[in-house]
C-alpha cells in the first residue's frame, strides 16, 4: 500500500492544476511545495490567460486574484532613440468571457493551490523534494524530502518542479541541458499611484496594458516587457544566457538602460522599486523538451519546458495549467486502471499532442530561434524604426523620397541583405502558421 495515490511536486500553476484534476477524479493527492506558501518562489513577466481553467474551475474569473485585465496589447520596437509601437486596444478583453490578466504570482499561485485543497488534495509547504524513490526494478515509487522521516510513496509522481526540474533530470528525461535554450528574466516591480498608471497608460478601473519590447536590451539577445498591475508596473528584460555572459553587461544595468530610453522613461517617472526578482525561462520550445513520461512519472509545466516564447505570443502559465491538468487526469486514470507504467501514462502525451499545448509548439517550432536570432535582435529594430523615422520626417523643401527608396536605403544601412530579409520573412510566415 502506498502512502498516497499521486504525489505532485511543486504547487505552481502546473502542480496545482494536476492536483485539482487528480483530486476531482477521486484520487488521494499530496501536493508538495518547497516555499513557505505556494507562489512564494514564483515570478514571471507576465500575463495569465486563464481560459483553460474553465474545465477545472468554471467560475475562476469571479475569484482569481488578478490585478488588471489586459485591454491594450502593444509590441514595441526600440532603437537607441526611436520607438515604433503597434498597439491594439479592445475593452471587450476586459469583460466576460475575458482574455489575459496581469497578476502577482504569489497571489495567483496561492489561490490556485487553495482550489486544489478545496478539491481534496493535501498541500504540504516548506518541504523540498530531494530525489526519487525507486523499487528494485528501478521503477519510480515515490520521493525523498528534506523532512525527518520524510520519504513518501505513491503510484504516480507528477513533477511540476519548475524550469530547473531536478526530478526530470534525475529520471534521465532531459537528453542534455544547454544554456542557449534558456533566458534569464529580471524584473522590477515599480510602485506608482493607480491614478497615475491609469492616466499614463490610458486605462481605467481594472483595465491593463501589456507592452512587449524588441530591442532596448543593450545588445544582448532578448526582449523587454512592461505590464500594469493596479498600483505597480512590472518592468523587466529577458536575456539569452550565453549572450548575457559574453556581453559582459550585468542584468540590472540592462534594465537601467531600458528605463532610461526616451519612450520608456516618461511611463515610469517617479516610480519606486519595491521588489527586484529573477527567474530562468525555458525559451527554446519543442527543441528543448524532455521526455514527459516514465514508469510512474509525468512531467508538466516549466519542468517540461512548456513555455511559449514566440515573439508576438509569450505564454507560459496557461501551458503549465493545461499540461498539469492533463497530467493529473492521466495519472488518475492510470491509478484507476491499476497500471501506472509509461505505456499506460502515454495518454498524457497523447492529450498534449491533441491540444494547443503541443500543437502550438509544433506550429511555432522555429519562432523562438528566429526571435532570438542576431538579425531579428540587432538589425530589424533599427531597420524598422529607421523607415518610420524617415517616412514621417518632413524634409521640405525636399520632396518625399518615396517608400521604396526608404526601404532600400534603410535595409542597406541596417546591413540586411535582400536574401536574408526574404528568408526571415518566409520563416516568419511559415512559422507563425
Amino acid at each position, binding site marked *: 500500500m502506498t502512502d498516497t495515490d499521486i504525489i505532485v511536486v511543486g504547487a505552481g500553476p502546473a502542480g496545482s492544476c494536476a492536483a485539482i484534476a487528480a483530486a476531482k477524479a477521486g484520487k488521494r493527492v499530496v501536493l508538495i511545495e518547497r516555499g513557505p506558501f505556494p507562489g512564494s518562489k514564483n515570478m514571471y513577466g507576465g500575463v495569465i490567460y486563464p481560459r483553460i481553467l474553465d474545465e477545472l474551475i468554471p467560475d475562476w474569473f469571479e475569484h482569481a486574484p488578478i490585478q488588471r485585465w489586459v485591454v491594450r496589447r502593444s509590441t514595441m520596437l526600440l532603437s537607441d532613440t526611436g520607438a515604433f509601437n503597434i498597439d491594439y486596444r479592445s475593452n471587450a478583453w476586459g469583460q466576460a468571457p475575458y482574455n489575459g490578466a496581469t497578476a502577482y504570482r504569489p497571489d495567483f499561485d496561492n489561490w490556485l493551490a487553495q482550489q486544489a485543497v478545496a478539491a481534496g488534495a493535501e498541500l504540504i509547504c*516548506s518541504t523540498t523534494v530531494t530525489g526519487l524513490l525507486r523499487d528494485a526494478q528501478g521503477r519510480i515509487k515515490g520521493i525523498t524530502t528534506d523532512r525527518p522521516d520524510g520519504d513518501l510513496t505513491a503510484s504516480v509522481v507528477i513533477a511540476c518542479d519548475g524550469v530547473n526540474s531536478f526530478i526530470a533530470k534525475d529520471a534521465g528525461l532531459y537528453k542534455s541541458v544547454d544554456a542557449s535554450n534558456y533566458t534569464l528574466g529580471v524584473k522590477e516591480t515599480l510602485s506608482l499611484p493607480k491614478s497615475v498608471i491609469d492616466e499614463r497608460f490610458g486605462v481605467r478601473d481594472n483595465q491593463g496594458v501589456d507592452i512587449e519590447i524588441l530591442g532596448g536590451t543593450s545588445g544582448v539577445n532578448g526582449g523587454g516587457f512592461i505590464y500594469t498591475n493596479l498600483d505597480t508596473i512590472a518592468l523587466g528584460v529577458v536575456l539569452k544566457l550565453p549572450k548575457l555572459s559574453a556581453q559582459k553587461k550585468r542584468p540590472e544595468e540592462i534594465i537601467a538602460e531600458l528605463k532610461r530610453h526616451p519612450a520608456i522613461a516618461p511611463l515610469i517617472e517617479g516610480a519606486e522599486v519595491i521588489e527586484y*526578482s*529573477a527567474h530562468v525561462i525555458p525559451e527554446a520550445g519543442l527543441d528543448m523538451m524532455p521526455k514527459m513520461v516514465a514508469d510512474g512519472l509525468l512531467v508538466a509545466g516549466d519542468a517540461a519546458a512548456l513555455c511559449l516564447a514566440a515573439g508576438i505570443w509569450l505564454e507560459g502559465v496557461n501551458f503549465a495549467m493545461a499540461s498539469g491538468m492533463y497530467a493529473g487526469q492521466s495519472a488518475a486514470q492510470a491509478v484507476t486502471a491499476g497500471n501506472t507504467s509509461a505505456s499506460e501514462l502515454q495518454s498524457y502525451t497523447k492529450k498534449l499532442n491533441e491540444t494547443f499545448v503541443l500543437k502550438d509548439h509544433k506550429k511555432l517550432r522555429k519562432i523562438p530561434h528566429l526571435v532570438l536570432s542576431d538579425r531579428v535582435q540587432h538589425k530589424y529594430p533599427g531597420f524598422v524604426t529607421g523607415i518610420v523615422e524617415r517616412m514621417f520626417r518632413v524634409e521640405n523643401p525636399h520632396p518625399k523620397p518615396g517608400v521604396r527608396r526608404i526601404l532600400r536605403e534603410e535595409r542597406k544601412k541596417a546591413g540586411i541583405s535582400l536574401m536574408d530579409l526574404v528568408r526571415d520573412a518566409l520563416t516568419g510566415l511559415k512559422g507563425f502558421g
Partner: protein
Amino acid sequence: MSLESLRAANNIERDNTWAEISFQERIDTAEFRIHERAHITVNGDSCRGCTTRECVVACPANLFVPTSDGGILFNYENCFECGTCYLVCNQAGAITWTYPEGGYGIVFHRT
C-alpha cells in the same frame, strides 16, 4: 520676471533620469529567509582555471565575486534560486546546485 530669467526658464529641460538605486538597495527589496546550510557550493579549484567567468556577469543577485588570487568568492544568502549560474558555467562540477531547505530562501511578496 526679467528677460534673463525667462530665457533661463526656457532652457530647463525635463529631467527623465533619476538616481539608480544601489545594488544592495535593489537586493534588499526582496525577502530572503536564510538557512545555515549553503544550498550552492563553488569549487574554488575549478574557478581558478576559468578565464571566462560567466557566473560573475550573469548572476542576477551578483553573488559571484572574483578574488585577487584568481578564485571566486561566493555567497548563497541572497540567491533568487534561478539556476543561471550552473547553466552558464562551463567548468564541469564547479557549481553544485540544490534548492534550499523547505521554507527557506527567496520569498516573493504577496499582496
